[in-house]
């Protein structure tokens, strides 16, 4: 068993990012303080090149490293989502880091390594690789959460994230160990073959193993009851990183979960759909109802991301191609709306990344008409109102459920989106309908952030009105 350059081709996007990460690591040492932005630009280039390589190889279908890693449309689609997220987050970070006086090269390094981990997570068929990738990514995230280390919240967030993340990953290891014990391998295809012919006892044990593995993934995608870190971490992390965390790791984890579930757990579909049914329902309901009481924009988005994870679980629960495709599409749509919303949070944030209370948005729509309008679009998008990407995404998710005759799941889903409309619209209310802001609120007047807000808003609308090509791409991507 020997490796060839062929194997390296499959990880070109990862390699590019790794290369750039190392480049930053080295160049950072010689950069004077005022030129630290070059780090960011380098990271941006890395992302762009990686993105370009993903696009060039979009239709490739290859496996490498003893089937441990593949490059297929699914992984490429997920890569696109992650790289776009990374791109936007990096753009959002430029001025942010300058303002916070934390303009360190390490930020971008860790970020790039995390993306590498995510890409690997998204493109592997081996559970153990998944575990390592998840951990790499998690560690990156712990670090980025605590990056503003002089801030109480940051420390606390990182601490919680760390404890809970490690806690959950133990169960992931346990689950992987069980699969290994049962089937002698952690390769999903082997597991699938084994499961197809497995005895009832094996199947039963496999379900339990599935549960433990799911703890790990559930933690990453913030499914109830493994969600508890989400709001705290989102609220405490640097805003660009909250944005990043709410999309990219989720995209990777969802794709990994899809692979694990669809490929590995295919034979016991009947069982995991039931489990996921319950989890999806609880997750949506939890996220949405608790979000009703939030006062802080970032925290609200944290809860809302729990809810959105619930919606996406609906797509997986549906257990059909449409469902998987729509999960991917939803991730793609969610990218823009959530990043946009976080960008607005950044826009209103003060020094030390504070001041993201919703109340600070009072009269915002009139003071900043364009950005206000964009926020309006994001809010309606998150609530799932057409003509936005969020609506189309939700439509497909629920229609997948309906296709699998999971009517109640779909109904609970839409009821939830009606509940969610309340708190999203409440933001609109505050922006437009509560009169002027009394106190002086200094916004973060960063051109990149504004550009992000406007461009994501346009994208949200564009995808909402002309979803066709994106949708076919998403639907075609999940043919495993």
């Amino acid at each position, binding site marked *: 068993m020997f490796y060839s350059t062929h194997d390296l081709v499959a990880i070109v996007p990862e390699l590019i990012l790794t290369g750039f990460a190392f480049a930053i690591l080295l160049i950072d040492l010689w950069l004077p303080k005022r030129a630290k932005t070059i780090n960011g630009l380098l990271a941006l280039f890395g992302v762009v090149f990686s993105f370009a390589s993903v696009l060039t190889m979009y239709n490739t279908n290859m496996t490498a490293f003893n089937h441990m890693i593949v490059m297929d449309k699914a992984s490429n689609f997920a890569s696109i989502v992650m790289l776009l997220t990374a791109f936007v987050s990096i753009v959002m970070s430029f001025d942010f880091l300058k303002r916070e006086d934390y303009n360190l090269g390490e930020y971008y390094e860790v970020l790039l390594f995390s993306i590498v981990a995510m890409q690997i997570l998204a493109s592997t068929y081996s559970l153990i690789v998944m575990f390592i990738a998840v*951990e790499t990514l998690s*560690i990156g995230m712990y670090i980025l959460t605590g990056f503003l280390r002089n801030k*109480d*919240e940051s420390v*606390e967030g990182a*601490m919680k994230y760390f404890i809970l993340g490690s806690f959950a990953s133990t169960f992931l290891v346990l689950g992987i160990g069980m699969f*290994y*014990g049962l089937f002698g391998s952690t390769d999903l295809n082997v597991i699938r073959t084994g499961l197809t012919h497995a005895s009832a006892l094996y199947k039963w044990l496999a379900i339990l193993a599935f549960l433990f593995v799911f703890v790990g993934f559930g933690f990453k995608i913030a499914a109830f009851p493994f969600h508890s870190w989400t709001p705290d971490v989102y609220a405490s992390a640097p805003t660009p990183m909250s944005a990043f965390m709410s999309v990219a790791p989720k995209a990777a984890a969802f794709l990994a979960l899809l692979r694990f579930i669809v490929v590995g757990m295919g034979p016991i579909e009947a069982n995991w759909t039931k489990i996921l049914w319950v989890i999806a329902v609880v997750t949506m309901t939890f996220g949405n109802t608790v979000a009703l009481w939030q006062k802080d924009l970032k*925290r609200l988005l944290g809860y809302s991301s729990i809810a959105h994870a619930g919606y996406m679980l609906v797509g997986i629960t549906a257990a059909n191609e449409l469902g998987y495709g729509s999960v991917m599409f939803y991730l793609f749509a969610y990218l823009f709306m959530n990043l946009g919303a976080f960008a607005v949070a950044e826009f209103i944030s003060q020094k030390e990344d504070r001041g993201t209370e919703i109340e600070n948005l009072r009269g915002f729509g009139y003071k900043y008409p364009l950005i206000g309008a964009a926020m309006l679009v994001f809010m309606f998008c998150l609530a799932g109102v057409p003509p936005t990407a969020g609506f189309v995404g939700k439509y497909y998710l629920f229609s997948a459920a309906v296709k699998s005759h999971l009517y109640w799941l779909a109904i609970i889903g839409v009821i939830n989106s009606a509940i969610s409309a309340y708190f999203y619209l409440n933001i609109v209310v505050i922006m437009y309908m509560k009169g002027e802001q009394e106190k002086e609120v200094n916004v973060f007047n960063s051109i990149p952030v504004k550009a992000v807000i406007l461009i994501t808003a346009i994208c949200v609308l564009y995808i909402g009105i002309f979803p066709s090509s994106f949708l076919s791409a998403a639907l075609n991507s999940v043919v495993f």
Partner: protein
Amino acid sequence: MTGYLVVSALLIAIGATGVMIRRNFMIVLMSLEIMINGAGLFLIAMSYYLGNVSGQVMFIFIAAVAASETAVGLAIAVMMYKKKKSIDINDFSILRK
């Protein structure tokens, strides 16, 4: 086999309980180590009973991961200490509800 698995289960449960009931961050960290070792034991036991060395290889990865985790965990502990001169995790609970 059951014996090893039970030991593994005990370690995981003890570690989990530690995470749940202890307030000292360092001890939480240790509990996490114990947990992951319990899981690692499971893997090694599997490896032995299957007659497949992959499990042992995996344990190496897990050890590496655990080490990195600990490194970061300790960094966080230092942050906490710097911030509040305390590593009681209950002192860090302003983010809630």
